[in-house]
């Protein structure tokens, strides 16, 4: 589906307004944004500027108050919750700001979970996760439960989980927040390679200068709205 359109994500006049007691919070304000397939884009902006909310909207985890969002050629507003779930399973990889690993599964099982849902054969699942674990310095921690991993280690498992099933689009919320510069470079190398070799589209929400530097496009948000949008050559 995404082949028939040039873009991976398109939003048109998207608003997300939360009702906080008597007060209205405009978390995302009139965002119109097109992200081409194969982009490596960072969303930057101060805390509370709406980055996470925008990623959640794009991933179909929450519905916009106004406006339209297309992902992989489908307008999300036209999809049922079931169809949204299906779209996430097949097209989208998430890295959540709070990692959100499943506590009852080991690191390896967490990382291969989306592939398990997709029905990928066990051997292939294991091979892909092992390789990505090696590249992110997670080898030897496969059998640990998330509760027995550090924040940085959990974050790496979360990143591997998002990319291992080779989705068309990866939405990563602060994927390097808890990593030292060495580990975060390794993760970025890995993602950049997936981007180059498989054409996976990456959208990051980030405060991390490294990530911004290595992104080809930098979208800055302020108070829920797009403030600037630069693409480097």
């Amino acid at each position, binding site marked *: 589906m995404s082949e028939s359109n040039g873009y991976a994500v398109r939003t048109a006049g998207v608003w997300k307004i939360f009702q906080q007691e008597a007060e209205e919070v405009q978390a995302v304000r009139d965002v119109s944004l097109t992200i081409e397939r194969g982009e490596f884009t960072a969303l930057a902006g101060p805390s509370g500027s709406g980055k*996470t909310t925008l990623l959640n909207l794009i991933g179909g*985890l929450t519905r916009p108050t106004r406006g339209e969002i297309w992902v992989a050629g489908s307008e999300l507003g036209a999809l049922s*919750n*079931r169809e949204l779930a*299906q779209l*996430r399973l*097949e097209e989208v990889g998430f890295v959540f700001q709070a990692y959100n690993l499943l506590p009852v599964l080991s690191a390896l099982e967490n990382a291969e979970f989306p592939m398990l849902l997709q029905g990928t054969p066990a051997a292939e699942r294991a091979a892909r996760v092992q390789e990505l674990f090696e590249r992110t310095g997670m080898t030897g921690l496969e059998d640990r439960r998330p509760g027995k991993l550090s924040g940085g280690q959990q974050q790496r498992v979360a990143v591997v989980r998002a990319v291992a099933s080779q989705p068309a689009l990866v939405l990563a919320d602060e994927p390097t927040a808890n990593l030292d510069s060495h580990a975060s470079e390794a993760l970025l190398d890995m993602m950049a390679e997936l981007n180059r070799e498989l054409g996976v589209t990456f959208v990051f929400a980030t405060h991390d200068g490294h990530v911004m530097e290595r992104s080809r496009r930098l979208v800055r948000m302020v108070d829920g709205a797009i403030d600037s949008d630069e693409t480097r050559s």
Partner: protein
Amino acid sequence: MHFGVITMLALRNLRRNLRRTILTATAFIIGGALLTFAQTFGDGTHEQWIDSGVRTGSGHVTVEVPEFRVSRKIEDRLPGGTLQLVRKAVESSAAADRVTDVFYRLTINGLATSASGARPAQILGVDPTIEASLSPLDEQVVEGRYLKKDDRLAAFVGAGLVDALDLRIGSRLVVMAQDAHKEVAGQLVRVVGIFRTGIAELDDSVIHVPIATAGEWLGTGRDLTNVGVMVDSSVAVPGLVRHLRRELAEPIAKGDATVMGWREAMPSLHAAVLVDEWGGYLMLGILFVIVGFSIINTVLMSVLHRHREFGVLQALGLTPRQTASVVLVEGLLQTVVCALIGVGVGLAITAAFSGGIDISELYNDQEMQFSGVAIDPVIVPMVTPVRILYILGFMMFVGIVSSVYPAMRAATIDVTESMKFER
């Protein structure tokens, strides 16, 4: 439907919350064991009632002329040969090996008279040999003996009747009733035994005489008023009734015979069993509503603690319905296993009491009776496959129903809210 994944998650979650799982499981297992024992004990009790009832009454299945039940008159007797017909039908039945006895009687209402007066009496012409092995009356002898094979003018009389007519062993009395020619006929008999059951209905009116004597007296020859069939378990009754109705279709169509199971023949006994059963169901229903609510509570608590997890599952591509099924499968797995264990434990308890439980102490030496039926105080629990299946089905129903609400909660959580990053 990701069934494998859902089952794995459910199993992992049950294991992670081992303490809670064990607590819930224990409640369910104890409930199941109690339920099983209570039901087998209840069924055993009812079987006892039924058994005692049909022994003093007309058998598990009775064949008689339709009018006889009400009229109790000799003119409403079965044509000769019916006994043979019933015997043959029983032999060809699928339940043949469950039949313990086929017996026959000539039962009529009449009058018993002595020098001291007259009393209405229920006079039973019986085959002493069969009756001795069948009727509980021969075990209730207080004086003398029960009828014997070659007795002719002998009578076995209830103690109440004996008192009223001022009789003793060896006394003569005359039994009177309308005979086959619609004339009043009398027969002189001698008291050989006196019984006391403690049940007025029996003690004050029942007289057993040899069936041959009765046949001569009433001019009925070898005719009978009723043929009874005894089986080893009341479970076999409905099938046997159907079979006999098929085999005796001809006399039934002519109005010469009717086939009744004990439920029809002894409606008050049936009603008593039903009332007691439903009383039991009500108690168990209440027990399981309580167990059910405690399950709802624990499952719901576990769902509330796992909001984030259910959010993640949906974010990763499980549909709300699949998310709900993680909770349902958890409940189902636990329920199935616990129901099986609980019923197993219940059956083990039942087996431990397979020799019977003497409940006579509960009754302070009073004779236990039930709608005119004396009851053996030793209850042997009864296990039937149908009952066990009902119990398993009921427990699983309770387990699943109590997971439905928590499952709905898991399905309808706010995904982004549940996965929020807390600083």
